[in-house]
């Protein structure tokens, strides 16, 4: 644990924060543009778009150019990656929760169930991070974005498969939250498994 804490500042310095910063800027812009303090209601579509952008920014921040060099260090891959994931996920969660809190505090949610939106956000974020960790940040972000956009397109034609209920009062929020909860759990499990040292992974498989 001490090693992980000691690694925090150095890891944070080595991470690519520019995409995440831009995505966070878009969250702030969204909150400001929506003007919830004037009674404007939150746009669900825009909120989701920024959520996805934050997830992609976070996924790209996980890019670990020094992974091969550090593979022989005494710290395990799990620890090294946990530090990186904790930093990225913590920052993304902080930005998202602060933005949602700001919107909720001004009463501008427009009836959007924020708790379910948070579950959806957690699922989206963890999925992006899992894909990014599994196949590389750049390719992972690509697969993630394509998959998510595909899901949106599909639900336009087949609303019964809706992962993103289109309006606050629309049916399907509970089921969508359940699906996103499962996605979040599976993604977190996948993150744990693929972050174990390769030799340990092989032992488990055997």
């Amino acid at each position: 644990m001490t090693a992980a804490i000691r690694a925090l500042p150095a890891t944070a310095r080595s991470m690519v924060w520019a995409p995440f910063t831009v995505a966070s800027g878009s969250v702030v812009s969204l909150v400001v543009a929506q003007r919830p303090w004037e009674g404007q209601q939150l746009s669900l579509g825009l909120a989701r778009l920024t959520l996805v952008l934050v997830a992609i920014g976070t996924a790209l921040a996980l890019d670990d150019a020094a992974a091969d060099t550090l593979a022989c260090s005494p710290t395990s891959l799990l620890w090294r990656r946990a530090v990186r994931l904790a930093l990225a996920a913590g920052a993304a969660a902080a930005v998202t929760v602060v933005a949602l809190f700001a919107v909720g505090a001004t009463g501008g949610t427009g009836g959007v169930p924020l708790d379910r939106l948070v579950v959806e956000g957690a699922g989206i974020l963890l999925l992006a991070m899992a894909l990014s960790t599994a196949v590389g940040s750049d390719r992972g972000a690509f697969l993630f974005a394509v998959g998510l956009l595909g899901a949106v397109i599909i639900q336009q034609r087949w609303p019964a498969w809706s992962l993103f209920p289109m309006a606050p009062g629309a049916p399907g929020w509970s089921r969508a939250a359940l699906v996103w909860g499962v996605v979040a759990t599976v993604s977190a499990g996948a993150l744990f498994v693929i972050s174990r040292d390769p030799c340990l992974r092989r032992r488990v498989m055997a």
Partner: protein
Amino acid sequence: MSATDTAPVQQDPSPPSRVPPPAPSEWRVARAVGRVEARHLLTVALVPAALGALMSLGYGGDVVDLRSASFNAAFNLLLLAAVTLVASHRAVTRARRDGSEELLATTPAPARARTAGHLLAVLAPTTVGAAVTGFSLAALVRQTATVGDPVLSELAVGPVLVAGAGCLGVLLARLWPQPFTPYLACFLIAVAELGVNTPVFAGSGLRWLVFWVEGTLWWLVPRHSAAHLVYLLGLVAMAAVGALVRHGVTRRLVGAGAVAVVVTVVAAGVQMRQPQEHWRAANAMFAAPESVQSCWSRQGVRYCAFPRFEEVMDHVSQAVTAVRAVMPEEAWPSRLAVTQRVTALDLQYAGDAPRWLPRLPDMPQGRVRQPDDGELHPGLDFKSWSAVQEVGFGVQLGAKAVGLPVVPDPRTGEVCLAANQARAVVALWLGGHATDDAGAGLVWLVERASEAAAARGRPLHDAVVPIAEVDVYGGFVVSLDDARLALELLRRDSTDVAARLAEHWDVVSRPTTTSAELAQLAAVPVPIGGAARAPFVAHMDPDLVRLGAPCR
């Protein structure tokens, strides 16, 4: 440092006119690069293209207006366009990711030729997009009955979007090769699309400045399809020229860029025009519909339709004929007029657009209600969106025959209570014959009402069913038992039921005859519920349907 920075043409600070034009060998390199990159883009395009094609399946039984289908065709290609944008960017920046930029800079293939190759490669997903559009159109024509003609300039928007996305990806890669750039571009484009394709911009020329303009109110607000296509082509050319200019300016590029800018600006100006005469004609659809409609008679029924919607009336006419075939001749209304109106169903996706259309002062601001003038008023989108609309139209015709109100009370918006009345069941049974889907519309209503009553913890016995979804058809409600009895009758041989009804028409069309008596006359099981004690509308928003007094 990128490959473009290390290329000799970039390091040469000489003025633009001294940059040599592309040598023939450069084009050969561009074509070769294009062939290889096209294969990569094709591989990536397969899944989104398959999804786009899949979106056009499953429309059996509907009538599709090929004009509105053309306006929305590009939607199926949005995923392909977004994927092409990101994939093009990733293809151009591959050398940067792999650390092979310096290696490439030493080859005889200059950066400009490689960029041109990436631009040529975009033709592959563009062709796929065109194929998907063609497939979608063919699938629609094969699966459904169609009205109107396809709008080619609108159908072309989808493939052009794919081409534009690819060229934009290449341009962005040459300007900002960071991996986040294409996602940010997609985000900004999506924000612009979401922001502009809203009711707020329904009447504004500004909405034409985004790439894809959805077609909800295509029949009402000006739509400049050809000018928009030219505008998009201009943007595509600008992106392509911009990517090439990054490696140095030539006279030919300057010329092409200037033409692209002029074409784009002129087309943008043309598409944003809002002619006054168009708005006057559009407003007449609400203010004086008869002044812009054409009318004709067929089999003793008078039909009136808006321009461009005469074909839809053929399907309305078929519904009238189908209901008439099972109705006793003595019950057929002596005078029947079927006049098209803009209905609530036609405006269901328009949101609060009327607020933002000041040049349509007669467009209703609130809920559109059908006039109570004794005529039937099908909408513009008849048989496209909702099977409830189809059974509803037939029920209105049945209501005229049995003496029930055709529309809700125009002053109060109330529907009368026809629970346990045989004539209401007969009206539903007649309505169920309007089209092949009409019975399914009634089944859907019964299921929704049953679920809603159970969810509210109210007895099913007290639930009453209006024939309503987005619009209200018929000015009455029936009990759930009555609706089930109508479904039971629809399951029986219609010739036999029609004969029994014709034999006892005086009895079954009387307000005092009960559903149980009708069941006995038709030899079907008697509904067990009887009259509802505390009737409530099970599945409709109170703003849409309010329950009034019993029907007389």
